[in-house]
């Protein structure tokens, strides 16, 4: 049998293959360079506009007139060429792709490193740069080196306050920031089957933090149910015994909430080791943890109380925001003193709407805590929405154990 990546790409690990892509997308950041490279390629029409998307999420709404002008140019291009377009406020590209677009078995390429998120559907999904994307615009296909695979067996079930983000921070901590370079991660075992689609997306989202090309879950009944809500019918993918380059087992029964300390994503340790570290700001959102389940879990903990530090919540998409409005999660957040931003990346990439100042300490549900990423001279810790909630109430890092 083969690994899931080998099956989808149709060749054994190590081979180079050219493949048509089922879905390719850019955002307002990478779209600019893609368009420039595309223009230099001197083509008139996109090869397959029906398979291409452009989704504005990185600096939305525009923060100044330079950004606004760049976005205007992309907007015009999208209208001319007729590709799928989502303007400001629609949401984060990876989230929108997960709302009834990407299906199991597909080859998906995004001009963004976290495109590996979509592997949660049993798709081969990976990130490329702008020039690679321009060649895809021109030809509809690209080349891949079929990756070797690291199997991550998830045993047992999440308990207590531990959640999907803690699984992600745990495997990144174990593999290290280059432990998965050039490879794919496959999540297997009964623990994998027990996770919701939202949880799976959180977990595959961070595959790239180990250097991996993608992270995959096998499509199963959970996948079928989730996509069924969007009117898409899918079949389960048979789990086979692939040849794995390495195998790792995570025991979910024993997992506790984890925090990644500045400035490395793989510097994870139990939250209890950081208990009491004072923070200036909490940020809940991003393509890792900006989904409805995340907001609801956060709201469940802060409900009826007041946050002790400034807290920014940014829903991952318009439908996440809408659902939060409909269920009352949104008013809970507002009443607790949170600032709610428009759907998109928010301050995640350090461009606007909540960047930190010199010497400030931030706690965030994002996937990266690189030096200066979310504000020059600041420090960031990464955690789950529950840990973020417990800490927001206290104004310092606090364990969600007993609250969640």
């Amino acid at each position, binding site marked *: 049998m083969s690994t899931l990546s080998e099956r989808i790409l149709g060749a054994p690990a190590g081979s180079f293959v050219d493949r048509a892509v089922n879905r390719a997308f850019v955002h307002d950041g990478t779209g600019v360079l893609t368009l420039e490279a595309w223009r230099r390629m001197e083509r008139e029409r996109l090869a397959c506009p029906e398979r291409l998307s452009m989704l504005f999420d990185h*600096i939305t709404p525009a923060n100044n007139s330079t950004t606004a002008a760049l976005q205007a140019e992309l907007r015009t291009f999208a209208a001319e060429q007729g590709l799928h377009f989502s303007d400001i406020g629609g949401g984060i590209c990876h989230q929108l792709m997960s709302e009834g677009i990407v299906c199991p078995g597909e080859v998906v390429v995004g001009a963004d490193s976290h495109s590996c998120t979509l592997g949660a559907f049993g798709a081969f999904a990976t990130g490329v740069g702008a020039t690679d994307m321009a060649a895809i615009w021109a030809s509809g296909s690209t080349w891949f080196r079929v990756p070797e695979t690291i199997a991550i067996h998830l045993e047992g079930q999440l308990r207590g306050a531990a959640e999907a983000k803690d699984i992600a921070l745990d495997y990144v901590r174990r593999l290290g920031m280059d432990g998965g370079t050039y490879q794919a991660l496959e999540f297997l075992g009964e623990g994998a089957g027990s996770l919701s689609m939202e949880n799976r997306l959180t977990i595959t989202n961070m595959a790239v933090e180990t*250097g991996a090309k993608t992270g995959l879950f096998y499509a199963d009944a959970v996948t079928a149910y989730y996509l069924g809500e969007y009117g898409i019918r899918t079949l389960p993918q048979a789990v086979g015994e692939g040849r794995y380059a390495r195998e790792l087992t995570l025991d979910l029964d024993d997992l506790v909430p984890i925090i990644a300390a500045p400035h490395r994503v793989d510097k994870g340790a139990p939250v209890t080791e950081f208990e009491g570290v004072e923070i200036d700001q909490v940020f809940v959102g991003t393509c890792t943890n900006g989904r409805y389940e995340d907001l609801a879990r956060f709201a469940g903990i802060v409900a009826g109380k007041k946050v002790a530090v400034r807290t920014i919540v940014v829903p991952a998409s318009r439908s996440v925001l809408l659902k939060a409005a409909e269920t009352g999660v949104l008013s809970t957040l507002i009443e607790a003193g949170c600032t709610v931003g428009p759907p998109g990346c928010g301050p995640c990439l350090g461009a606007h709407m909540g960047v930190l100042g010199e010497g400030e300490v931030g706690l965030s549900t994002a996937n990266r805590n690189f030096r200066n990423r979310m504000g020059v001279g600041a420090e960031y810790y990464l955690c789950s929405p529950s840990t973020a909630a417990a800490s927001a109430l206290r104004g310092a890092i606090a364990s969600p154990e007993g609250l969640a």
Partner: protein
Amino acid sequence: MTLQGNAVCLGADIDTDVIIAGRYLRTKDRRIWADHVFEDLDPALAARMKGAVIIAGPNFGCGSSREQAPVALKEAGVVGVIAPSFARIFFRNAINVGLPLMECAEVRCRDAAPVSFSPEGGWVEVGGVRHTATPLSARMLDILRHGGLVEYWRRQQ
């Protein structure tokens, strides 16, 4: 092709935010990226990039998919990058924008020492000592010879 320059030594896990910070991305002016390259690591580095061969630790270029990272290095005058391993998106991007790079497990960096390397021959020489490196594939070399994927692709049509 044999390429030459002077060594600039860097550590492991140099991420793309360090190569060019997110705050400089909202422009199409390549000079701006070149001027601010490695700013958060050491503001003095940008001035040393002309004719430099960067010799770094493992996992060079990890993090975001921003193509501005290899473009900034190339624009600043970097001749090539040598490291035991690269983040894969950075690796693809570098080839696509015409920045030579090679994987070499054993090389030891000596700051400012003369370096030469051959992407097709599969070797790197630092201060006169030769090390084996992984040669680039025929397609990658072809793309590099065209100065990047755009030109390569135009010729393919």
